[in-house]
């Protein structure tokens, strides 16, 4: 993965830039010592590292604006950072960039149960937003796997999803408003506690723009009343095809579960060895969860189980109590940890039309055999968002490159069948150079023009999202 050469003129002006930043922030909020900036050299895509010129940790929207004005004036690229959990390299710095971390912006500003929203500073973690309202029976719906650590700022930048978005939608469907600071320090309010835009939907445009249009410092989020209860059911099948057909039949029947999770054999075996969740020995496994009162859950699960039985399941296991429900989710939730124990792995994030599931799983198996690297599949089947995990050994020469090549082939396959490169992780640097596989030059040009409007000098997170050659002229200007 290539990154642009750092600008030597900026590197040579480091002392002056740092001094100017110290002029607008408290002493401990500007980090420039070599051993300290290393803490910001990468995010969760750890294969790529580069210490930034400096890192700043502003404590208010005004401080963010002051930092951005200085960097704009000095022509210094800025890389916004939430909690650094991006799997796509969204917060990877370059040597000539300033990392702008929102970690110190973590207050709850307003909670309004009558109007069902919460306003927070965006350094706050996803889970702690729900934490702030759950005593009153409410929750914030988007639930990315990293929700314990990931910041709302990053969720907005990547339009993060989670396991429960089949019913509740992703970040953009639960985001009501933001305070966004543009690269030149201009502060704009988009949206608010009311619904929908009066003019152009700039809020919808900002969400998922990967920190390239502005730095979001405050967010108004929709909160929902918690359902009365939820219950999962586990189903084992003799092939991926049968499991895929079962998913499709459940959806066609008019039931809308909150989650339908799919695991294939390599994943089941690894999870079982790691978490001892008591999963059956089978080719494919589904976890389907529904919500409501006990009686409503019985009604929905009754229908789901009836459909599943038509597909000759190897096993059907309904959770009788909270403990059994926990065990059903245990293996799924520890899937990534389980994989990490046996191997290095690369987690992909393509989405496909649900109907293509059997075909895509077959092709992934063929590709995996061709490359000689094992792939385990765990994903949100209801919405077609796949997370193939490519297992490799990072210490072995050439294996990372080989895994990346296999990953690129799998993502191209997703696009080929009518899907996309990334369902919830974002493009970052990881999928940047594959964008031309999904989008024609005119499609990319239309997106880059949006950045021209928000950030004419292309200083905000500049080397991400678009293929480097496509954005080269704009970044150089």
């Amino acid at each position, binding site marked *: 993965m290539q990154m642009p050469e750092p600008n030597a003129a900026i590197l040579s002006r480091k002392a002056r830039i740092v001094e100017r930043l110290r002029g607008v922030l408290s002493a401990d909020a500007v980090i420039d010592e070599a051993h300290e900036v290393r803490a910001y050299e990468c995010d969760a895509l750890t294969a790529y590292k580069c210490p930034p010129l400096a890192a700043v940790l502003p404590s208010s929207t005004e401080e963010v604006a002051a930092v951005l004005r200085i960097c704009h004036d000095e022509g210094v690229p800025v890389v916004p950072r939430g909690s650094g959990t991006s799997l796509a390299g969204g917060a990877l710095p370059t040597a000539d960039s300033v990392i702008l971390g929102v970690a110190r912006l973590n207050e709850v500003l307003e909670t309004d149960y009558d109007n069902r929203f919460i306003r927070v500073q965006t350094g706050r973690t996803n889970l702690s937003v729900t934490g702030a309202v759950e005593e009153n029976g409410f929750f914030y719906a988007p639930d990315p796997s990293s929700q314990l650590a990931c910041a709302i700022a990053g969720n907005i930048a990547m339009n993060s999803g989670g396991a429960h978005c089949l019913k509740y939608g992703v970040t953009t469907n639960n985001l009501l408003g933001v305070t966004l600071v543009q690269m030149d320090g201009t502060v704009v309010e988009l949206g608010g506690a009311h619904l929908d835009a009066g003019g152009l939907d700039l809020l919808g445009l900002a969400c998922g723009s990967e920190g390239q249009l502005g730095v979001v410092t405050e967010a108004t989020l929709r909160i929902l009343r918690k359902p009365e209860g939820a219950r999962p059911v586990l189903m084992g099948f003799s092939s991926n095809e049968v499991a895929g057909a079962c998913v499709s039949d459940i959806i066609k029947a008019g039931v809308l579960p909150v989650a339908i999770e799919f695991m294939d054999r390599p994943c089941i075996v690894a999870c079982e060895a790691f978490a001892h969740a008591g999963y059956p020995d089978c080719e494919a496994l589904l976890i389907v969860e529904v919500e409501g009162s006990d009686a409503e859950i019985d*009604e929905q699960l009754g229908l789901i189980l009836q459909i599943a039985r038509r597909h000759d399941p190897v096993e059907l296991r309904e959770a009788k109590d909270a403990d059994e429900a926990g065990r059903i989710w245990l293996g799924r939730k520890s899937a990534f940890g389980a994989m990490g124990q046996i191997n290095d792995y690369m987690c992909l994030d393509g989405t496909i039309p649900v109907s293509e599931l059997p075909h895509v799983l077959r092709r992934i198996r063929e590709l995996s055999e061709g490359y000689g690297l094992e792939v385990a599949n765990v994903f949100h089947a209801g919405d077609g968002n796949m997370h193939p995990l490519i297992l490799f050994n990072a210490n072995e020469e050439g294996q990372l490159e080989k895994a990346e090549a296999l990953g690129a082939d799998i993502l191209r396959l997703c696009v080929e069948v009518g899907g996309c490169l990334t369902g919830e992780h974002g493009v970052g640097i990881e999928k940047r150079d594959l964008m031309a596989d999904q989008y024609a030059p005119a499609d990319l040009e239309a997106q880059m023009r949006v950045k021209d409007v928000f950030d004419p000098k292309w200083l905000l997170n500049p080397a991400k999202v678009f293929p480097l050659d496509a954005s080269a002229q704009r970044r150089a200007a």
Partner: protein
Amino acid sequence: MLTPDSETELAEVVRTTDGPLRIIGGGTRSVGRPVTGEALSVAGLSGVTLHEPGALTLVARAGTPVAEVEEVLAGAGQRLPFEPVDHRALLGTEGQPTLGGMVAANASGPRRVQAGACRDFLLGVRFVDGSGEVVKNGGRVMKNVTGYDLVKLMAGSWGTLGVLTEVSFKVLPRTAEVATLRLRGLSDDDAVRALTAGLGSPFEVTGAAHDPQAGETMLRIEGFADSVAYRAGRLGDVLAPFGEVEVERDPEHVRAAWRRVRDVEAFADRAGDVWRVSVKPSDGPELARRAGAEAVLYDWGGGLVWLLTPEGRDLRPRIDGLKGHATLVRAAEATRASIAPFPPEPAPVAALTTGLRRKFDPRGILNPGLMD
């Protein structure tokens, strides 16, 4: 009228034209500043190109009638979940509302408060920009964060950034049963409190409206039979402190009642301007008091307020200080020329909006001025 019947032809028309274009789907949503220009109809680009019930997806050309799409979906027990408004009665227009027009207006009805707006279910778009270039964004899968979300930008842009040629949607199952819980004779304040109690309950209220003229406050529940019965009962308990709760289960009656809310039918035959205001729900009654309207209809739990006001009067000075946005949806052309139908934006936001328009439509030929 220009009537291309393919995307290629439409792109050619835009590329080679000199003058401004007035873009028309079904011609049923005459909203915004009056636009002068040659009419460009998208009706020739019609037809559902893909419907996969098992994937909850539908793709269709922009000129496809909404009614045709609803029929295709109904055949598979599905629907457009955001309950698009049909503006014909309110605006006194004729013709067939199209999918493209619906998206351009981000037309969403009562269910928006729970399920989401048109923009939330729009998965992908193809459009021709002001230079005649075909652009696609998003796709036909439910989760997609590949690049910027121009899909949201196009929804509600009223044909000012590009001419839509194809749109794709996430659809949802049509629910088996419905029920309306109705309270009578509540003040606006109490009505919004009752709606708030319902929307803040775990019983999945999919409609929450108040019609002061009819003296009716309504909440809707949808789902499987047993579930609707159970939730109607529990929600009735929640609403009991506000008065006697009637439960309506006849599907035809329930549907008709919510269609009246969706299409603001109460204002259809009455003279006057119609404003549509989005605020946080608890501000709804205060907004209505200040507006001095002749009639009011609350939807979205009080957060969407429809106001019938004397002709030619600007509402905005009266509601200054309340956060949200007000759109003049219905008024004589002269009024729509003198009072901005779309909410004026603060300078830095207006700068972004103007900048985007210049990029997408450098010659300023697509519905020029409609949203100004």
